């Protein structure tokens, strides 16, 4: 029987199927961080059990860590307590722990792939909804709650009904300045934040085939923002080249054996999806959001849609615009901004810093803008330095911070003040997401860079052309 990529990976991990109930799914690799794990470890303690397979779990500190002076003790006592709990729990259960200052430390979804923890055909979970990132490698990866973290720690399994399947095809070539982030924001704007709820998505078509691994990670990362459990892309030579030789990927004969399996990981030609949608790449332009969920995005040259044209509750839509202090029908280009945030598991990888630098090179940060540039990991930070990007950023008046989730969810000190506007490369523009009262405009690193040097929402193509004629 023909199978989808998702079927192949899911079905091979089912330990037991419960009639009229969930599947017991074996989890190959498990990532934990300080925020969603302490109560799970406490649960193990209360039951008097140990972690069943500690070699399958990896721990890092990222969510509430400071992005400055990481060598000093963490000031916030609650954050410090959570970090201490993670370290103690990891040590007590022999789980590798990459805490603050460790060279492998970084955002959990950035360091997984970097260290070869993420491999094709694996099941990967983490108590974080953006675990979908790892699907870029042809893995089934999704976020779980703390009860499920406890399940994985204690039994290496979770219990989930098999989701439905959806394939999203984007064919053709992307236009200038259209990045993977724009592709994802475009799809979410079309499907809405609940359009893929109940589904696991496979991304297919020219655009994803031609996309870098970093770009694929950005797209899969945002799968959850359309409600999908996760998204995945069939592994190819690009995938294998990326992971080969990384610390936790198989070596020697094991690599050859793994490759044999990985090469079977694609959707059979006649595989049937529960839902299939197709978009034309040429329709996509650089995107920006104007409201309070990631589905409220438009091409940057467009105006904020009129309430009467939207699909959904008008009252909710108006409440959202009121929060943003925007009016329907207004243009986004030219709107003043106060902050720029480059980073997060969505856009905190080296390619994102290259893109940002390509725009700010030879320009200066606008005086009215506070910019937080936060690499996704120490490895990204190193690459930024090695490639000379740091010099470009510093010449333009920017400062590079230390790795972590930072202003994406503002658990640390990196909070956008109430009422201020931030162009952010992160993943959520929910009310208060980046700080109580903060207003977030989600966009790509190129759009963020254009805003950072002009102090307002600016189409990056304008700056790119300016450069061409200079």
């Amino acid at each position, binding site marked *: 029987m023909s199978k989808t990529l998702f079927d192949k990976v899911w079905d091979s991990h089912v330990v037991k199927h419960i009639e009229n*109930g969930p599947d017991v799914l074996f989890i190959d690799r498990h990532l934990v961080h300080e925020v*969603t794990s302490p109560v799970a470890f406490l649960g193990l303690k209360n039951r008097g059990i140990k972690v069943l397979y500690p070699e399958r779990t990896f721990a890092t500190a990222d969510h509430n860590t400071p992005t400055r002076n990481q060598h000093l003790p963490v000031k916030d006592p609650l954050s410090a307590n959570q970090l201490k709990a993670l370290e103690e729990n990891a040590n007590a259960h022999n789980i590798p722990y990459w805490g603050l200052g460790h060279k492998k430390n970084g955002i959990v979804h950035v360091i997984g792939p970097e260290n070869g923890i993420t491999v094709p055909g694996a099941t990967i979970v983490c108590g974080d909804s953006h675990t979908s990132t790892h699907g870029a490698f042809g893995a089934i990866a999704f976020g779980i709650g703390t009860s499920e973290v406890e399940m994985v720690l204690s039994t290496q399994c979770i*219990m989930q009904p098999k989701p439905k399947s959806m394939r999203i095809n984007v064919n053709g070539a992307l236009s200038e300045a259209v990045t993977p982030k724009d592709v994802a924001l475009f799809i979410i704007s079309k499907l809405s*934040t609940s359009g893929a709820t109940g589904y696991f998505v496979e991304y297919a078509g020219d655009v994803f085939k031609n996309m870098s691994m970093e770009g694929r990670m950005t797209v899969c990362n945002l799968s959850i923002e359309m409600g999908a459990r996760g998204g995945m892309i069939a592994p190819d030579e690009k995938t294998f080249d990326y992971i080969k030789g990384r610390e936790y990927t198989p070596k020697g004969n094991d690599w050859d054996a793994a490759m044999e399996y990985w090469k079977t990981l694609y959707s059979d030609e006649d595989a049937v999806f529960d839902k299939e949608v197709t978009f034309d790449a040429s329709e996509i332009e650089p995107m920006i959001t104007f409201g309070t969920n990631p589905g409220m995005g438009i091409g940057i040259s467009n105006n904020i849609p009129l309430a009467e044209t939207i699909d959904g509750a008008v*009252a909710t839509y108006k409440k959202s615009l009121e929060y943003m202090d925007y009016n329907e029908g207004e243009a986004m280009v030219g709107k003043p901004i106060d902050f720029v945030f480059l980073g997060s598991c969505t856009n905190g990888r080296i390619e994102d810093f290259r893109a940002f630098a390509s725009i700010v090179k030879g320009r200066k940060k606008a005086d009215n803008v506070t910019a937080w540039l936060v690499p996704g990991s120490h490895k990204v930070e190193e690459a930024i330095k090695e490639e000379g990007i740091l010099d470009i950023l510093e010449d333009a008046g920017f400062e590079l911070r230390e790795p972590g989730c930072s202003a994406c969810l503002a658990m640390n000190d990196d909070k956008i003040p109430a009422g201020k506007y931030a162009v952010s490369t992160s993943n959520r523009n929910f009310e*208060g997401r980046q700080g109580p009262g903060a207003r977030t405009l989600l966009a790509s690193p190129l759009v963020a860079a254009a805003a950072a040097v002009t102090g307002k929402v600016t189409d990056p193509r304008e700056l790119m052309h300016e450069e061409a004629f200079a």
Partner: protein
Amino acid sequence: MAYDKFNILTSSAVPLPIENVDTDQIIPARFLKATERKGFGDNLFRDWRYNSDGTPKEHFVLNNPIYSGKILVGGKNFGSGSSREHAAWAVYDYGFRCVVSSFFADIFRGNCLNIGVLPVQVSPAFLDKIFTAIEADPKTELEINLPDETITILATGESESFEINEYKKQNMLNGFDDIDYLLNIQDDIEKYAENTPL
């Protein structure tokens, strides 16, 4: 941790007729710093419920004494966003045992089931009827009947059935959790793991 048994719940309900209520509204990230599961109810809907100086926002439904009960009724796509189970904990800790909506985000729904809060998905038309009934009489009661898988507006007798898989239903009725089940089949799991390289 096994949780409360759920059978038939009859209660008035708190209406929140807003779509896409995300987990950052249910519990903002800055309140996720605890290492134990307690006290999250105090910060349920924190920024909708309180001003920045900590005084209650008069117009928010949780601050309106005419609304109370163990059932929270929300608009479409309730619980979207983050996987934080803290959102479900906050709902539970505040005193809710059931959330009704016309559509739930996946992870939030799963988290609720895992801690003993029953997510009840109804049709958009029935959701409207509930909101209308509560608007007419804030004390109107809903009956959530898990054994029969029905939800009824007691004042009008209008009723609808809802779905829950049999396994989860038994868990909720008996207060079992998934770890109890998984620990019971550990031999099967270990056999599987032997044949699964890292």
